């Protein structure tokens, strides 16, 4: 937990720019919360907007002031274990222009994500050619993590399904991500 806390603090400046990017670039649906320690995960197929953090008990609170500037407030008095500490997960499929494909997960939240699991289904004109489960642990902020890569001759559709982000013993899910060719 200490390691994760340090990581969060050291990357504060990075987080600010990241949030700005998030707010501008991603229209996402926020789903899949838990009772005590939510993991909020997002996909590219959503409609709701970015959710601002205002939890007074949080170790780091990010908010906007009256001028619209993003402010970062640090509270050193609270326990490192942060109820409601939010994570965001962004998952996308990538096509390199030929029959190779890849699936990436990007942590666009404030804390590490313990684990991400998902299922990838790849079709070509002859049917379902690949259905594979993948899991990656320790997803740090900002840097995309390659979750899966593969080759399917003449692929026409990639479905990323059952996407789950795990953190603090809980998990959230996000809608499927599809890529067509």
């Amino acid at each position, binding site marked *: 937990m200490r390691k994760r806390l340090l990581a969060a603090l050291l990357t504060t400046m990075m987080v600010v720019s990241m949030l700005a990017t998030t707010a501008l670039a991603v229209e996402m649906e926020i789903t899949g919360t838990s009772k005590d320690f939510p993991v909020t995960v997002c996909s590219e197929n959503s409609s709701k907007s970015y959710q601002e953090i205002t939890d007074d008990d949080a170790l780091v609170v990010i908010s906007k002031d009256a001028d619209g500037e993003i402010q970062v407030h640090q509270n050193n008095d609270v326990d490192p274990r942060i109820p409601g500490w939010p994570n965001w997960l962004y998952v996308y499929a990538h096509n390199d222009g030929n029959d190779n494909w890849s699936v990436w997960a990007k942590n666009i939240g404030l804390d590490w994500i313990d684990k991400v699991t998902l299922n990838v289904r790849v*079709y070509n004109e*002859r049917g379902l050619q690949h259905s*594979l489960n993948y899991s990656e642990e320790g997803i740090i902020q900002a840097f995309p993590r390659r979750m899966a890569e593969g*080759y399917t001759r003449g692929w026409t559709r990639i479905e990323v399904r059952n996407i789950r982000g795990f953190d603090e013993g809980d998990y959230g899910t996000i809608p499927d991500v599809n890529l067509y060719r």
Partner: protein
Amino acid sequence: MSYFQTDDYDELFKYFFDVYTIAFTKGLATDEFENIRQQIPNLNVDHDKRVSFFLGEGLSLLREAYTPNVLALLLDHLCIEFLGTGISVEQLQIINLSKYLIKSLYAFDISEFLFMARFWSKQTKIYAEEHFYPSLPIDIQEKYLHRHY
């Protein structure tokens, strides 16, 4: 010199007829493919089941979405495991043909397989006419077999 003209090769080609049919009509990641993958024929030369092992393992690699080069590497790796184990020349020849057919399947280029008809026995050709060709997708039948409905 005639190649692939034994009962074992007949059985092997018929097995791949079914494998190709499922791959081209259902897909590699289906229960149908898994079922047919496990129905490996009993070959006379395969007394110690090394060919069966290769077919089972080799076809299972198709599900992993490796690139063609990686698939070829892993198939070669499987073959190398047999070196020095007392495997017969006949078994190695069947494994070699199987490797070729697996790689052609992964490329979804059925023409490679159909061009091998010149090596099929008379019985295998008749079997293909009656069972294999009609089960292929219509566009393949029209393009490669000149069968128009």
